[in-house]
């Protein structure tokens, strides 16, 4: 069983919440890179794209840990 509760300052939190925070940090970095090269300017709905990327990153993290 790879999904075990994580001890944060004595409180056991669900692994998904840690993965969600990690995915958010990764997405922030990707968004900064996309913003630096002006890639978001080519997108119809930048916020929707960033959200979709976040879901992809989160799903990837879950699959990697599960695998």
């Amino acid at each position, binding site marked *: 069983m790879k999904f075990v509760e994580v001890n944060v300052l*004595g*409180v*056991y*939190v*669900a692994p998904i*919440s840690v993965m969600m925070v990690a995915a958010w940090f990764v997405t922030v970095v990707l968004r900064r890179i996309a913003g630096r090269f002006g890639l978001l300017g080519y997108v119809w*709905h930048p*916020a*929707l794209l960033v*959200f979709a990327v976040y879901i992809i990153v989160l799903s990837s993290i879950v699959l990697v840990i599960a695998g």
Partner: protein
Amino acid sequence: MRKGMIELSLPHLRGLASSWHAVSGWRSTLANAAWAAGPPLLFGLRLWASVCLALYIAFWLQLDNASWAGTSAALVCQPLLGASLRKGWFRMIGTLVGAAGIVMLTACFPQSRVGFLVGLALWGAACALVATLLRNFASYAAALAGYTAAIIASDELGAVGGANGEAFTLAITRVSEIWIGIVCAGIVLAGTDFGAAPRRLAALLAGLSAEIASRFGAALTLAESALSDMQPVRRELVRQVIALDSVIDQAIGESSRLHYHSQVLQTAMGGLFEALAGWSAVVWRLARLPDDKARQEADAVLNSVPLELRSAPPQGGATSWVADPVGMRRMCDAAVLRLIASPAGTPSLRLLTDQTARLLTGLSDVFDGLALLVADPARHQNLHRARLHVPDWLPALVNAGRALVTIVAVEVFWIITAWPNGALAITFAAISVIIFAPKADVAYAAAMSFMVGVGLAAVCAAIVAFAGLPNVETFAGFSIVMGLFLVPAGALMAQPWQPTMFAALAGNFVPLLAPANQTSYDTVQFYNAALAIVLGCGAAALSFRLLPPLSPAEQSERLLALTLRDLRRLATAAIHWRRDDWDNRMYGRLAALPDQAEPLQRAQLLAALSVGTEIIRLRHMAPQLGLDCELDSVLKALAQGNSVAATAGLTVLDQRLASLGRGNLHTSRVQQERGRVLAICDALAQHRSYFDAGASV
């Protein structure tokens, strides 16, 4: 030796002097800081007292979920007294409507989980729609009806959805708890702060009207070049009048007498718009006249305006206006009668006198409002009922759609994941998505601040719950521990930096802590509840990002386009509006203009108000003078967005009126109508691009 001593002492003396100055500077800085921190700290104490009183009563009555009493007390507490008291009343109404709604929803879908959850989302969407359509605290009541239903539903729903049939009992209990909180906060706030909103409103009304009157007086005495210099000032004044709306609502919230006569205050605000419209029309006319004629006609009007009005001190110094508003109103009314009765040799002079009378009538309405605020003559009767004029339906529909999608999305997530605290996430998603919907372009930032505030509240609640509360056994000890958090949180909420975040911090602390008669210290339960609340708020913030509200620029453009559409409908007689209907509709549009709107856009809306008013008057007059045909051709051109043809038609109409005037039949009446024709011509010339715009919404 002596000289040497002096030479040695001087640097020391200088050092001592500079140290003394530094100490004095520090002392004055500290004194100023203490003086500035006083009111916020006092508010923090009030917040703490309200929450503790509400919790004490709820514990004493042994209600099953006493934390909602403390939560509602914390949410009702606002730094402005008027805001708090009125919010409290509206909160009671909203809570009741929400409770009734969820009971009906449960009755409609007793066995259908999908029906109940979709119904809940639709109820939330309807509340978001109404919350956007209504203004200020009526809007807050509608939002409350939405999230009260969500609060009761979260208690009612089982682990994976579906009503458990205890809706009525839960509704009674939650409403009782919430009302205890509202009443406790109301008692504490009303007993410790007597408010200053009516005085503040009186000062603002007096200041704005004094500035309009004095600037108008200056416009009549100054040369043509100075007239154009005043244009930015006039447009800025329109913005300041629009901003009065929330202050009026706060003042109404502090006094039941003002609430009963609220229409007088709304009329005062309308009076300021009328005064500005009249001032604009006078300035446009003077700018189009040759210098000598402009001087001559301006002097003729100037003599009819009382010196006390046009020499009024600028904003901030209009104390005499506040001191005797009844006398000033009498003076205005007398001046209006003088202006109407004064003979006018030319249509141009007639226009100037009529528009000046319009300005003074507007100021008279303002003095009426001032009299209500400070002098209270026992003569006001609230005969007119305010009608709701929706400036634009689109923002409300967008907000309703967003609320529906968000609540449904969180419900689906909850069902798929079978998350035990999913119902709480739905509640807080509904709260955020509904309550921030009317904030338009700042909704996302506010929702994010709210989420950050909730996150901070979760950390603070964890510290208090697991480090503070286990060490106390009495209610007094519990209150002291609560005070350690609530007093600073309340003080931070009352200062101008990030008030939404600190309001979320103070308001969500109690539900996160969830104090009960038998407190449990279950860390897993606390963590799950905190996560559900933060994720619910996060889902709402995300929804504002993915389905953004209209930008201020889009809102302004839509309001202008809708106004132009209404004006054209008015011109084609597709709609028969009375003058009051038209005026109120336009005041609603002006009030809905975002603060970021261009000054020119405010001026265009004001011009549309004037043109519409004159069209209604001319339409009323035309059959009596047999001028239907001429007027119809003018209005047809106006409806087609052809201001050149409309101006040509107005010239023909003016000539026909002039020929009627030559026969000495209804001479003064004819001059008045010619003045109106001229006023429309001036407005069309001033804002030709707007009136000719082909777009229709």
